[in-house]
């Protein structure tokens, strides 16, 4: 019968119309700036630098090895090494980046920098509200913008952070054991000196 389907359809839309006023769970819209969905753990967009402790300059994990800079496919990382050295998390004196810039307008969120970093110093952020009025200045993020604490990283990606923490703790334990061994009255064997120099 002609018109039967139209009546059925109209009944369905009327049910939707009235139901949306009665049942809140019909409305799937999230009113974004006020409400927001929880972030997925695997979410990522741009990299940030992890630091331990409270002081971002003292606790910075990055040792300016420049592997990420070389590996970055769109070449959005710019690093300058420092002249002096500062102790890293295990107490070993390391150089640190004097300048560490990421141009997030160039970054393509590939996560290769994270995968190549041997120090767990660079990780992916999920911050997405980055719109700015100045597309050249404000999208070039400097060391101070990029530095975020390890607690923040733990909150963002708990699984990945736990792995990284375990790795770093193992390293620290190894360094401590080595330091203890070095403190013991056993001199360095002459054979190992050239190996270190290399």
């Amino acid at each position, binding site marked *: *019968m002609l018109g039967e389907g139209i009546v059925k359809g*109209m009944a369905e839309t009327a049910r939707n*119309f009235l139901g949306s*006023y009665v049942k809140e769970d*019909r*409305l799937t819209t999230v009113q974004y700036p006020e409400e927001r969905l929880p972030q997925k753990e695997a979410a990522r967009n741009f990299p940030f630098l992890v630091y331990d402790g409270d002081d971002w300059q003292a606790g910075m994990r990055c040792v300016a090895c420049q592997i990420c800079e070389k590996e970055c496919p769109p070449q959005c990382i710019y690093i300058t090494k420092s002249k002096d050295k500062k102790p890293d998390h295990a107490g070993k004196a390391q150089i640190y980046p004097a300048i560490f810039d990421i141009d997030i307008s160039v970054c393509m969120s590939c996560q290769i920098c994270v995968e190549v970093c041997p120090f767990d110093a660079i990780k992916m952020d999920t911050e997405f509200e980055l719109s700015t009025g100045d597309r050249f200045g404000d999208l070039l993020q400097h060391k101070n913008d990029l530095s975020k604490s390890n607690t923040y990283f733990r909150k963002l990606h708990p699984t990945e952070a736990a792995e990284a923490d375990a790795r770093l703790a193992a390293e620290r334990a190894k360094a401590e054991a080595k330091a203890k061994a070095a403190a013991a009255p056993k001199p360095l064997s002459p054979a190992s000196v050239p190996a270190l120099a290399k």
Partner: protein
Amino acid sequence: MDQIFVTIKHWAVGFGPAQGQPIISAIISVVLLIAVFASLFAITTVLERKGLGRIQNRYGPNRVGPFGILQPVADGVKALIKEDIVPRTADSVVHFLAPLVLVVPVFLALAVVPMGRNMVAVDMDAGVLFFFAVGAATELSVFMAGWSSRNKYSLLGAMRAIAQMISYEVPLILSAVTVIMMAGSLSTVKIIEAQAGYAGGLPRWFVLTPWGLTGFILFMIAAAAESNRSPFDLPEGESEIIAGYYIEYSGFKFALFFLGEYIGMFAVSGLAITLFLGGWHAPFSFLTWIPSYFWFFGKLLALIAVFIWVRGTLPRLRMDQLMNFAWKFMLPMALINLVTAGIWRFLSPGFSRWLICSLLVLGPYVMLARGLLLGSDVGKRTYRYAE
């Protein structure tokens, strides 16, 4: 209370010089018409968007003002400050005139629609004829817009619009003719007078007769097609020809087109109310104390709500379905309805008249529907070259 606007207007006109009074009266009516229907347009746009949102289980606009009711203001400001782009190869004069040619006739058409007791801008003897005559000018505007833009999509949209509007003009007018025939007048005021009074608790509206109901349904379908409303919005078809003849319009010209389309919808709904729904008459005799203009605008909003509801429900027709529906169903039904109305006129009132006329309408409906569905083969689709 019922005559408050009429009295105020007479009082205001009385201040002018004697020979200038007709023109002062006309100017007041025109200004009021434009103000009332332009604000109704603004309200309708936001209600439509909210209603469609609810139909799709969304909130709809809710950012500007409380519950988003100031959305039309934001839209208006945006339309005004947008750049007015005219394509370099466009016929700039025709391109400029097209929105005006749409907006002027639809406001003219509103002039003959009575909005309440004694509330009609012009009481013409040939009011319905005037309505359809100026209504036909919108087709010209659509083709002007499509042609002058010098764009394939806009020309395609205009061609579709012309084909559709001319096809549906016929059942639209034929279904209105039944009412003219029964009321014995082309004057909108006389047609409403013919529907005055109550019989057995029900109003004597034409929609409450078999031929009136058929005529009303046919009229509303044709009206949706005439005003390019979904599901007859092929000329605009966003997904196929990217807004059709609107494609090269931006800023305020586009807003004018939008306005013209909605005012056209209001005008044709107003005529449907006049012809079939008893104009400004109250539905029950104990409700006559409510002023007549409330009834007119109440019925108008109800019809607009139906238009929105249909838009939220039905998908767009295909061109061949559109044409088949117009010529193989709407036109024969309108003609049969015309004959039914004549038979109704000459049968003595009673149950037998109802039965005979209902059968006269329902029988052809079933037959024509079968004929319409017969051609459409809904089997499994076969692909000749794909797969």
